[in-house]
């Protein structure tokens, strides 16, 4: 069973095939004049949200105001480091974190601190488990993990069996605040998400049994809410809340994660099409002598998340300024130096292969379907027009043999059928 946190605003969808044709896993079809996501194929990369001209694709996140007025005794915000690149003149992380408290969160816990823990654990893990058959693949980008499960199942064994920085930070926050006297159920932990894939990771985790994160709120919602506070806040109001150093903050952009490992043989790739290309090469044994693969579905890494405000290139320039400014940061030492022993960062379950690519679970039946598909494909117009609601003629043929469409759903095929019928009728009249 698949799950996606991307949903459709039906009123806005006009049934054009822009998202259908741009989806990197061909997961979308237009049926009955509206776009439908086939969740078994969706990897939550958010491409459809980016390309929809009508704003019909949205990422489902919790309502920020509802969260802020909820009954949780302690509401903790988990900001990802990419958030620090979203605001123009500001370079002080503590100012941004204080603004989160101003809008109603009781506490903040930077995800970048969790990232630093994962960096350390990754170094240790690779030393103890040198790669045998291809590199370890970072598990930090959930869209990439899902991509491997659906399209590259032979690489599942390469996924680094460590939990994500977000999950790590959430577990640390839970441990710290329960030690302060709160009950576990009184603590609500909310990740400020730059993408739909992270929301899916929280609601439908694939590497842990249950996420320590309560829910996600959208980066866009938070941005517009904290922006006024960031601007008008007096310097004296700024609290010391920062936990993360440059190393953790660097995870926000592509290459930052591998940089922290200090190994020469890392490969970093961003942008979903590039990731697919690299995974394909990896499967072919074409990429050798690499022991770690950092792959981010979005261009620029998390800075390019579909829920970010800034474009990833401008965000990266700002990020560099943030990193420079942070050479002498003020840290919240009580939280930083607390006891986090007993927190495990190992994955709790193996990523499951999603057999969505298979034509049939029965090998012989799959062969028969493939023959029918290829035969039909040869007869199709090869225009890839998308009028049938499938992204291209090949996917159309696939849908027909899967029983989702019939041949006449292709307008070119239908035209030929009608023309033939007309000719037959004329021939009859002449008799």
């Amino acid at each position, binding site marked *: 069973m698949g799950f996606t946190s991307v949903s459709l605003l039906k009123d806005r969808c006009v049934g054009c095939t822009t998202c259908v044709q741009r989806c990197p896993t061909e997961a979308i079809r237009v049926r009955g004049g509206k776009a439908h996501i086939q969740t078994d194929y969706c990897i939550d990369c958010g491409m459809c949200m980016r390309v929809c001209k009508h704003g019909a694709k949205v990422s489902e996140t919790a309502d920020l105001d509802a969260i802020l007025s909820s009954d949780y005794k302690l509401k903790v915000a988990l900001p990802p480091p990419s958030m620090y690149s979203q605001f123009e003149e500001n370079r002080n992380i503590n100012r941004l974190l204080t603004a989160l408290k101003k809008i109603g969160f009781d506490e903040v816990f930077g995800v970048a601190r969790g990232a630093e823990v994962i960096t350390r654990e990754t170094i240790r893990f690779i030393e103890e488990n040198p790669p045998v058959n291809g590199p370890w693949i970072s598990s930090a980008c959930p869209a990439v993990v899902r991509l491997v499960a659906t399209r590259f199942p*032979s690489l599942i064994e390469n996924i680094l069996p460590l939990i994500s920085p977000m999950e790590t930070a959430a577990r640390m926050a839970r441990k710290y605040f329960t030690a302060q006297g709160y009950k576990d159920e009184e603590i609500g932990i909310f990740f400020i998400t730059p993408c739909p894939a992270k929301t899916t990771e929280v609601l439908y985790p694939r590497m842990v049994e249950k996420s320590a994160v309560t829910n996600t709120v959208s980066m866009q919602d938070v941005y517009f809410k904290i922006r006024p506070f960031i601007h008008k806040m007096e310097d004296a109001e700024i609290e010391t809340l920062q936990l993360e150093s440059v190393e953790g903050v660097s995870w926000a952009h592509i290459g930052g994660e591998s940089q922290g490992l200090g190994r020469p043989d890392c490969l970093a790739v961003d942008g979903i099409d590039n990731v697919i290309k690299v995974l394909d090469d990896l499967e*072919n044994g074409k990429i050798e002598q690499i022991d770690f693969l950092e792959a981010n579905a979005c261009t620029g890494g998390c800075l390019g998340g579909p829920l970010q405000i800034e474009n990833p290139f401008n965000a990266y320039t700002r990020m560099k300024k943030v990193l420079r400014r942070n050479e002498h940061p003020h840290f919240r030492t009580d939280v930083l130096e607390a006891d986090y022993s007993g927190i495990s960062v190992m994955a709790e379950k193996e990523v499951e292969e999603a057999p969505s*690519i298979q034509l049939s679970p029965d090998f012989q039946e*799959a062969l028969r379907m493939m023959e029918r598909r290829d035969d039909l494909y040869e007869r199709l117009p090869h225009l890839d027009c998308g009028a049938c609601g499938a992204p291209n003629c090949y996917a159309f043929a696939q849908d027909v043999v899967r029983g989702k469409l019939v041949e006449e759903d292709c307008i070119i095929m239908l035209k030929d059928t009608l023309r033939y019928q007309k000719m037959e009728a004329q021939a009859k009249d002449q008799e």
Partner: protein
Amino acid sequence: MTFDYIVDPTEPERAGRASTKFKGVLKELGVSPKVIRALSIAMYEGEINMVIHANGGNIHCEVDADKIRVIMKDSGPGIPELDKAMKPGWSTASTQARELGFGAGMGLPNIKKWSDNLVVETEVGVGTTLTMEFNLT
């Protein structure tokens, strides 16, 4: 069921297309990830060899219930000392190919390592046919 691919030597940048295409077929058929990985590596290696050494050729793939057979046939120069070519490090690649980073002498040994059975038929001046098999059971 059979699948045929042409490896075009005039487009070396497209080398690997056949392997990637056939890999897609095997995923659709639900072939186990282990077999797919082994086959991809061996077939890709063979495809690259066809481009570097043999001026392209044809690939014929047969999928049966218990076995996949990949037959890669070229009309290239042939391999003069097959025993040596099966050992790691030995190569007939041209200086030009070596300058491009190919011809490390790992091709055939690598294919042998990843396939369940490999038969090499070669005749100098006539060509080479590799038949590799992968067990599905």
